[in-house]
């Protein structure tokens, strides 16, 4: 794999998540507003994000526009890889918010 190929795949992943990250984060902030007493803001947002990113992935790509998967398939990204990266990205951002 060369640098250009790396960049194509990274750019593809960026396109995939630009559709998901803003609504997931916005709803996480909203949900965190109603967090239980004793839980701080960042933890509330982090926990919500871990669960909401896969939910938005499911609604956006599995239900609403499954045909868009073919764009990412042509870049070499399979459906299981995209699902795995959704879970990983949700965990990384969510845990970062909780732990920092």
């Amino acid at each position, binding site marked *: 794999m060369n640098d*250009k*190929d790396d960049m*194509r795949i990274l*750019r*593809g992943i960026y*396109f*995939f998540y*630009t*559709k998901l990250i803003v609504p997931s984060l916005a709803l996480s902030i909203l949900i965190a507003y109603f967090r239980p007493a004793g839980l701080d803001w960042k933890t509330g947002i982090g926990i919500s994000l871990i669960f909401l990113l896969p939910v938005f992935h499911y609604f956006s790509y599995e239900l609403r*526009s499954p*045909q*868009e*998967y*073919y*764009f990412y*398939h*042509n*870049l*070499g*990204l*399979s*459906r299981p*890889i995209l699902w795995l990266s959704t879970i990983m990205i949700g965990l990384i951002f969510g845990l970062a918010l909780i732990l920092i």
Partner: protein
Amino acid sequence: MAKHNNDWFDFRISINSNMSGLHVDSVRKQIGSRQILNDVFISCEPGDVVGLLGRNGSGKSTLLKIIFGTLSADNKFVSIDGKKINSLYENRLLLHYLSQDNYLPNHIRIKSIIACFCSREKSTVLTAHQFVKPFLDKKVQQLSGGERRILEILLLIHSDVKYLLLDEPFNGISPLHIEILKDIIRIHAKGMGVIITDHDYKNVLDISDRIVLLDNGNTKVIREFNDLVDFGYLPKSQRLG
């Protein structure tokens, strides 16, 4: 015996390494109780345009998806230039697929999609194209269905892969633009292999070097137009001569 076995393996390796082009063999797919594909074979060389015809439900799209790797088969063998292809990741620089439905992400600007999909040289060519230039700063969702389809085909044709699988490329495109796209496919197919299927068989016949008919789960090579009538793809009223 050991010598014999080694000879046999050497023979197989030499066959595989000499096998240039896209080779698809032994594809079997059963859905429910229906055998959709039954030991299907199809091949394509760089510079070849192979037309794949078949009635509705004959398994054309299923076959293309199996070759591409997005649909599992009960059995399949796909190789490119002698190398067995097992995953989409291995395909990404060798084989691209145009799906029946619009596949471009709606929320991205067209110039960004081109920069992602094509090499710098091909991006320069594509962004200067008469169809693409007016839309560069637009998002895909701002294009009409026909404009999207043209863009999708141009993107694939300007990618650096060796083979293209085009599933109903002319769907939703006006006759004038179909003619232009056929010319573009013909020109670019000199450097890449194309397997194309479309319900408008005349367009497929126009641009194909070879025609393969998918019938009852098997592929049949079409040598002349009347074979399409004999195999029941076209009505008898269309027989020539």
